[in-house]
Structures are given as structure tokens and as C-alpha cells.
């Protein structure tokens, strides 16, 4: 069996499952964020009557519109806090702790072999540490709050083997853009994606960037097998191996598709408007002028991302025509970046540091674009209107490409700035 088949058979209490089979499962956790207010509203009466299924099931993070941008969003936050207090929800992270997916990994909630569902499409990120995780809608989250159970269809699996080493100036983000550009935005629809091959070069941060974007090719979940990198990451968080059970695919597992990539051939890439799979090399559109740059989000707002940007911006000033917004993905990351002088470097170069959270990623506040503007971002989505204005354009790239481009006010290959 594949990773997905193995973990789903375990949670379904069956010896063997096959793709297409419907199984009933009880996930370890249910992630919800600012949308919790709308979710609990749906089942208000039932919650009064029956209470929550379990106070340890929910992980609630307020991160999408923080601090509140309006009376309405402030009220949503308040409704969530009242709910958390009333039902003694164990895992609650209020405004300012971090972006939900970062928090789930950083707090050790996602562990190898766990099954987590969340009312956010990028819930698929936790395969970075060997968990099975997938996005669901709000109504299903509401039902799970009450019953703790739902159904899943056992997915077909795709195996992606990565061979070779990434070149200088090329990062995990370029790799995942390369794969999505190759197999398209629907290339892994309904499938579980397993990464293998020369993966020891990828830190948990890198793996997170890759699994986070699984949904951008339609995947149900995507996963890196647990290895020394995973174990030492968990060790560093004082999580002992007895706290989790790693699940590995069988050698004779059957895949619907097997893909091979020579990663050493990949160059800096950029996803162009208005679909993530519209991928070009940075070289192809180098020189295109941009007005806003964004470094952050659950895809690329981690310490290593901020450090890459700071190394490029160190001692230099960004173009006066650019607004460079930086959002650390969590308070912990922000603190480390402060201690290491990374924030100082970024601010001195001209960056604006935004509060930890989703910021302008979903177009709700803080850095909305004007018609005709172009934004180069480290986020995961460039859909029309995503950043609040349908006449604006969003380009996606690695933190290095964004930082190098901020210096010039134009799309720039990071390798030219890294050489200087």
C-alpha cells in the first residue's frame, strides 16, 4: 500500500483499503481559523444541546484578518474567544501567534502518522512532517465539531522522485513551481503525492513550501517520508520518537503515476497571472516593472526565507518605486529574526514589517493592490482578484527572487544579486 492507503486503512480500522474506497475516519485534529465564527454559527443549537465532540479535537488559530480590520471581523474574533472559553478548547492561538499552518507544525500538533483535517485548503502542508492532512469546507468542519467523524475517499497516489541537487540561487519554491508548471493546476486532482529521491537536501522549511502548494496541483495531500531531517526537527522541539508512529509506503505499492525530476536543471521560476501553473523562467520576463513585493505567508514566511531575503538586501536599499511588505509566519519566527538582526537588515533596506498573520495574501486588508499594479509575492496563489483587486496582477516566486526584484523595482534573477 501507498502512504495514503496505509494511513487511511489504519484510521478506518481495516487491514487493507484500495483507491476509490470510501472510509469513515476520526481525525486527530480539526483545524479552523477566523472562519470558526461562521462554522459554530451553523450548528449553534446543536452545540447547545450536545456540546463539542471533544475539546482536544479542535485547533483554532486567529490569523486571517489580524488585528481585526473592521467591526465585523472584530466581532468574529470575539465570538471565537467566547466559544473557546465556553467549551474549554485546548488548542487555541489568538491574534499574533502565527499563520494557522505554521502554528500547527511549530507547536508539534502535526506529527508523523497523524491525520488532520482543516477548513483551509493549505491544510495539505503537514505532509512536511509525515502527517496525512487535507482541506475540507466549513460545513464539514461544523459537522466534525459535533461528531468527530467524517468520510474520505482513498486517493490514488503519485510518486515524485527528485534526483540531483538544486543549484545556487534556486530554492524549494522554484522546484514546486516547476512541478506545478509541468503537471498543471489539476495534474494531481484527488491524488496523494509522495516525494522521494534526493530529499535530504530539503529542510522542514523547504518541505513545508513544497507540500503547502500541493493543493495548487489539485492534490488531496502531499507528503515527505519521515527521515533523519524530520526526526531532528522534532527532537529540536523536544518531541520524542515515542510520541509518534511514522508510516512508510510498501515497496510494492502501486502508483497511478510516477514522475522523475532532475532538480539540478531547474532555474529560478515565476508563476505568472492568473493561474499558478502559468510558470515561466525569471529570465523570460526579467525587467518587468513591479510596484509591490511581499515576502511571507504560509508558503514562504519562515526564518530561512527571511534570512535569504536579508542576505540579498543586506546594506542595500530597495527601489524607491517599490513597497516591500514582510510578514513573519509566526511570532516565534519574528522573535528569532529579531535576535539574528534579520529584521533590522530588512527594515534598513526599506521593508515594512506587517503583523504576523495572512496579511494581504487573501486580499482582505494590509496591502491591497490598485488597478494596473503588479505584485511579486512569495505566496501560493495568483488568482485574479486574490489580493483584493481584479485589475491587478500577481506573480509568485521564491524569497530570493522577490528580494532581488525589490532592489531593482523590476523582476530580477536572484543569481545576479547573489553574485554581487
Amino acid at each position: 500500500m501507498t502512504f495514503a492507503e496505509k494511513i487511511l486503512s489504519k484510521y478506518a480500522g481495516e487491514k487493507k483499503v484500495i483507491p476509490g474506497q470510501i472510509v469513515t475516519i476520526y481525525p486527530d485534529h480539526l483545524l479552523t481559523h477566523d472562519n470558526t465564527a461562521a462554522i459554530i454559527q451553523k450548528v449553534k443549537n446543536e452545540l447547545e444541546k450536545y456540546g463539542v465532540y471533544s475539546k482536544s479535537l479542535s485547533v483554532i488559530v486567529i490569523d486571517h484578518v489580524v488585528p481585526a480590520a473592521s467591526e465585523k471581523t472584530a466581532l468574529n474574533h470575539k465570538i471565537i474567544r467566547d466559544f473557546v472559553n465556553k467549551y474549554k478548547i485546548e488548542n487555541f492561538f489568538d491574534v499574533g501567534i502565527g499563520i494557522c499552518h505554521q502554528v500547527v507544525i511549530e507547536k508539534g500538533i502535526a506529527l508523523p502518522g497523524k491525520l488532520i483535517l482543516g477548513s483551509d485548503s493549505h491544510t495539505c502542508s503537514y505532509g512536511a512532517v509525515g502527517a496525512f492532512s487535507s482541506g475540507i469546507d466549513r460545513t464539514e468542519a461544523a459537522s466534525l465539531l459535533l461528531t468527530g467523524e467524517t468520510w474520505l475517499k482513498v486517493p490514488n497516489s503519485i510518486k515524485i522522485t527528485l534526483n540531483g541537487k538544486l543549484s545556487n540561487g534556486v530554492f524549494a519554491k522554484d522546484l514546486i513551481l516547476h512541478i506545478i508548471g509541468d503537471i498543471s493546476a489539476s495534474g494531481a486532482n484527488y491524488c496523494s503525492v509522495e516525494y522521494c529521491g534526493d530529499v535530504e537536501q530539503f529542510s522542514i522549511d523547504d518541505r513545508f513550501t513544497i507540500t503547502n502548494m500541493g493543493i495548487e496541483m489539485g492534490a488531496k495531500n502531499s507528503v515527505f517520508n519521515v527521515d533523519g531531517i524530520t526526526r531532528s526537527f522534532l527532537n529540536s522541539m523536544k518531541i520524542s520518537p515515542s510520541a509518534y508512529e511514522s508510516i512508510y509506503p510498501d515497496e510494492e505499492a502501486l502508483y497511478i503515476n510516477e514522475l522523475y525530476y532532475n532538480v539540478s536543471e531547474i532555474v529560478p521560476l515565476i508563476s505568472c497571472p492568473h493561474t499558478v501553473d502559468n510558470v515561466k523562467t525569471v529570465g523570460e520576463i526579467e525587467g518587468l516593472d513591479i510596484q509591490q513585493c511581499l515576502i511571507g505567508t504560509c508558503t514562504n514566511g519562515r526564518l530561512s526565507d527571511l534570512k535569504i531575503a536579508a542576505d540579498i538586501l543586506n546594506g542595500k536599499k530597495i527601489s524607491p518605486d517599490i513597497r516591500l511588505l514582510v510578514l513573519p509566519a509566526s511570532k516565534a519566527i519574528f522573535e528569532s529574526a529579531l535576535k539574528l538582526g534579520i529584521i533590522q537588515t530588512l527594515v534598513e533596506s526599506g521593508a515594512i514589517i506587517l503583523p504576523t498573520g495572512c496579511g494581504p495574501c487573501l486580499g482582505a486588508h494590509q496591502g491591497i493592490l490598485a488597478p494596473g499594479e503588479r505584485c511579486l509575492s512569495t505566496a501560493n496563489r495568483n488568482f485574479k482578484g486574490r489580493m483584493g483587486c481584479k485589475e491587478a496582477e500577481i506573480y509568485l516566486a521564491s524569497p530570493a527572487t522577490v528580494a532581488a526584484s525589490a532592489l531593482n523595482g523590476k523582476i530580477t534573477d536572484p543569481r545576479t544579486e547573489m553574485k554581487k
Partner: protein
Amino acid sequence: MKVWKYGDNINTDMLFPGKYTYTCSTAEEIKPHLLEDLDSSFSKDVSEGDLIFAGINFGCGSSREQPVVGLKAVGIKAIVAKSFARIFYRAAINQGLVLIECESAVKSYSRNGDVKLDIENGKIEVNGKTFSFPKLPDEILAIRDAGGLLPYTRSKLKNKYNF
């Protein structure tokens, strides 16, 4: 009955812009913004019993369910597409909205063509040609037939707690 025809990769931001996700959650709040950035005539002209035809990967992107809630509320009878994104697919089951994955039916459709839909028997007739689509598994059909997941869960809880 009108057929609304769209292309490939119609994403959730086109169906319902992200900027409204934390300010609009009821059907009445959602309706005026449906397909706002894709087809501004949709929310004005859509009526009960209309169909949507689309290409591959319909509903890709965010997990927001407002597009499904809104499309159901304005009376869309079914969405026929070459393929759907998975969270959208689940959300549709959970709201009791009918989705039909049938590439050949979409390919046969031409503007103002004739469409007859028989959901019960899994048949769709497009410009005189009939195509069948598979039935959903029983476990899932039970959710859709209950009118969506919440009514389904409510009756399950009632049975469990006996009140």
C-alpha cells in the same frame, strides 16, 4: 432554463472573491457577489433551474464554501464539468448541490444548445446526444439526499442521543 458556460480552472476567487470571505456568510449576503470577477451578468440574470457547464478543475483554490452555498441558493440545478477540484466537490455534496463530471457532455455542448438532465437515472442529453454519468456511492448519496451534511448530521445525532 439557461446554461451558463465557462472554461477551465474556474477558481474560487472567480466564483466568490476572497475579500468577502469574512464579511459575507449567509446566502443573501453571498448572492450579489457570485462570479463577480468572472461574469458580472451572472448574479443579475441567473434563475432557478439554470445549469453551469465548465471545463476542467472547476472550483479549484480556496476551501471557502460560499460559492457552493450561493450557487445552491440561486437555484443552480447542477454543474456539469470535465472535472472538479476536490474540496469544491465535497462542499457541493455537503450543501446538496448536484455536480456532474462528464467530459463528453461538456464537449458536445454548443451555445443555446438543448440540454435535458435526468439526475435520478444518471443521464444527460446534450444537443440530441445522451451521456450517462456514474451514481455517487451510497454513503455519499445519503448525505446529498438528506439535503446536505448538516441535516444528515442532525438526524444522526438525534438517533444517537434519542432526543
